[in-house]
């Protein structure tokens, strides 16, 4: 069983979404990050970009009202917001490689203190699933990761060096887990905010690298 202490997955995405700025173009990976499209952005205009060329998608379609020609990169039936456009795959990735994506939120197996991360291949696996992650990780202006603090068997996902093949090197800016918010700084991994009900000692005990901890760690900012 995975550790379900601390933040819910939706709260993890809500916290990352607070970092988005008005007008940002955002690409969400499969898994936990897809919940980011449910976040309340207030009066900020956020444009969701999908690898399959849907630019400006909105909420999930209601059951029975799905447009069978319209999915996001996670295969979810979505709706279109006013101003949406459709392009083909090469143009969608042209937007990625040429730096038009302000942030990508990705899931991960491991994030290292130097900003490397791994999310396409598990240990010992032959083959894997890259999808758009390598293009996004190499080229988005910001790379945020949303993942659980530990693996199903309780091992840290925040590590000194990735043990499994990386998706990209030195690209991660910010990590949210159910235990807190972490920033990759030039000096290493820093704990910025801590989840309610979690102690600094618990964070340290479940982190596989040195952690820069300020004297006072503020709680994770949550809406409402």
């Amino acid at each position, binding site marked *: 069983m995975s550790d379900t202490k601390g933040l819910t997955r939706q709260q993890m995405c809500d916290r990352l979404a607070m970092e988005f700025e008005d007008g940002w173009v955002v690409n969400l990976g499969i898994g936990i990050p897809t919940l980011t499209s449910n976040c309340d952005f207030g009066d900020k205009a956020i444009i969701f970009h999908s690898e399959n060329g849907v630019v400006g998608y909105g909420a999930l379609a209601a059951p029975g009202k799905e447009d069978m020609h319209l999915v996001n990169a996670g*295969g979810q039936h979505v709706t279109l917001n006013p101003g949406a456009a459709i392009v*083909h795959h090469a143009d969608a990735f042209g937007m990625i490689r040429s730096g038009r994506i302000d942030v990508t939120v990705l899931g991960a197996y491991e994030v290292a203190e130097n900003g490397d991360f791994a999310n396409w291949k598990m240990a010992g696996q032959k083959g894997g699933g890259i999808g758009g992650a390598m293009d996004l990780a190499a080229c988005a202006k910001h790379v945020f990761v949303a993942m659980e603090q530990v693996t199903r068997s309780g091992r840290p996902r925040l590590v000194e060096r990735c043990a499994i093949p990386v998706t990209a090197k030195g690209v991660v800016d910010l990590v949210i887990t159910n235990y807190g918010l972490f920033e990759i700084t030039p000096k290493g991994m820093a704990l910025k905010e801590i989840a309610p009900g979690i102690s600094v000692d618990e964070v340290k005990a479940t982190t596989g690298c040195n952690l820069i901890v300020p004297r006072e760690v503020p709680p994770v900012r949550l809406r409402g």
Partner: protein
Amino acid sequence: MSTKSKIFDTFAAAVADIPDNVTIGFGGFAVVGQPANLTGALAAQGAKGLTCVSNGLRGGATLPEDAPTLEWLVRNEQVKKVICAFTAPTRASQRLVFTEYYESGRIDAELVPQGTLAERMRAAGAGIPAFYTPAAVGTELAEGRETRVFNGREYLLEEALPLDYAFIRAYQADAFGNLRFRRAQRNFNPLMAMAARVTIVEVEEDILPMGAIDPDDVHLSGIFVHRLVKVPPAPEGWWPMRPAEIAARAAQQGAAR
């Protein structure tokens, strides 16, 4: 303009002459624009030693379990190699026939970042033999391969990926093969068509007379399109289904067994 018709009556006729040992692109993404009918026809036709290019092996949740996908060709032992952005299942609950063949070495696979896969076919269709991309630099995929630094950043050399055949699905076509796609249906489809020597299209709406699509509204020129087949209504033709319809269908089939 040739007077030879591009319109075929059946999927079987449209794939009949495909020989062994060719490279075929299978368009679509998460079922949308996925050529399930042509894939089924190729499984029946039986060409072997195929190299199959596709985003993944199956697609997504909006085709019923028994719909034709690359998995059919794998099970029929028609596949020599796949070139994909996903060789593993995209959901933890999914199991692929392919995995068993791949792990035992009976099928080879080339795993490619999705943007690189799209661009390699775009390049083939644009007459460009190779290009440099920042994707996959510093990863296992780049080991032992040529990189080059431009403006202080390292890029990986990738070669164009030409196809012998492209199987794609479109919303509308005229008799010349000018195509329109609907919503997310475009995805890899125009790129595969441009990369291929022979493009075969399954078309959702009745095939229109030449000139019925305004030239400004054509998404892919008929220059890149060679064969057209209209998708018949279900159950003769395969169409994506809503999650609730798939569940109902599976329950019905379970009861019938």
